[in-house]
């Protein structure tokens, strides 16, 4: 027999949750360091860190929701939605805090967001398998 009938197997999803774990752990470490060295901004670090973890979780879930679909446009659209959804979550989380709580350091929160997202972007090729 030239061809052997095989049953189509689902394409396994890459494990991207390590990135979320990494962000949570790094946010925790930054938070601990800040509690000791600059206790005035610990709340900003915790809030920005939590927001980053939430946004990254959303991106991971949304972008991989249609991974392996025969309908490739769905995957492209889901990734695009995940990407913009992540920044919408961050903006919708940060801007109201900056507007309503002027005492909180906006620059610290922005810095935490930039550091955590840059870190996960840099380590994504290693951590996503």
């Amino acid at each position, binding site marked *: 027999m030239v061809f052997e009938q095989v049953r189509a197997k689902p394409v396994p999803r890459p494990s991207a949750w390590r990135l979320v774990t990494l962000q949570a752990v790094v946010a925790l470490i930054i938070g601990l360091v800040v509690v000791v060295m600059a206790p005035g901004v610990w709340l900003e670090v915790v809030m920005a860190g939590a927001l980053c973890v939430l946004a990254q979780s959303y991106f991971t*879930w949304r972008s991989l929701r249609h991974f392996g679909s025969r309908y490739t446009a769905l995957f492209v659209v889901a990734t695009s*939605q995940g*990407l*913009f*959804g992540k920044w*919408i979550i961050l903006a919708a989380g940060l801007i109201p805090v900056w507007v309503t709580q002027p005492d909180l350091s906006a620059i610290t929160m922005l810095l935490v967001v930039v550091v955590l997202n840059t870190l996960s972007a840099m380590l994504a090729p290693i951590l996503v398998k």
Partner: protein
Amino acid sequence: MASEAGSYANAGEYISHHLTNLTYGKLEAGATMCDGSTLETTQWVLGGCSAEFNQMGFMAFHVDSMIWSILLGVIFLFTFWRVGKKATEGVPTGMQNFVETIVEFIDSQVRDTFHGRNPWIAPIALTVFVWVFLSNLMDIIPVDLIPYTLELLGVKYQKIVPSTDPNITLGTAVFVFFLMIYYSFKVKGFGFIKELSFTPFNHWVFVPFNLFLELVGLIAKPFSLGLRLFGNLYAAEMIFILIALMFGAGIFFAVFGGVLQMAWAIFHIMVIPLQAFIFMVLTIVYLSQAHEDH
């Protein structure tokens, strides 16, 4: 690097001028005018300098973007109407061949991607594709050509690429978003709300969580359309402007700048249809999702 006086004070002024829209807007009483005088009563005016534009705030219209958008839309409609009216049977040639190629290309994309039944989707996709393509194509025209010509005629500011204006790209995206919402309700009725509330976890306990996930995804759709197109074209325009700065730095840099402009223009020829294509495909997919009833 042309201007009213023949040259700009510095590179920053040149860049700022080329990225400023001709704006018609509301100036409140007490606003400082370009000549330094103070406005006595609130007025709607065509701004003459960036200081006036900045004071207009939200109540402002980018006249140049609107005029160029409408003009490109008219060119598209007139060209396709003329070709359609003069279309002949048999092997097409010239413009008819070109238009038929585009129409067939869009038609095949819609057949592949759209899974519902709606005769309006292909015309919408065609309109979106050609209009975004023409808007992007304006980026190929040398950055100083039209603005400088109009400046000689007294129009100080002019941005000729509508897709480098977020008002235009997000406006188009919002149009697609409204269509999406309209078809979602038309096809699914209350099922659309149910879909948002019970996906991905089909239990009433998870309704708030599901709504959060799905609403973020829903809002992300127009942003993914509008901001991506704006970002790509704005960055490309910026590079053209930065290269054009070299024309004012002596003959050697001018020639080198010319070579760079040509190279970037050739690369940009790929970006122009690609961005129009992505906008169109996303539009079809979003409208297809609006028609899918599980």
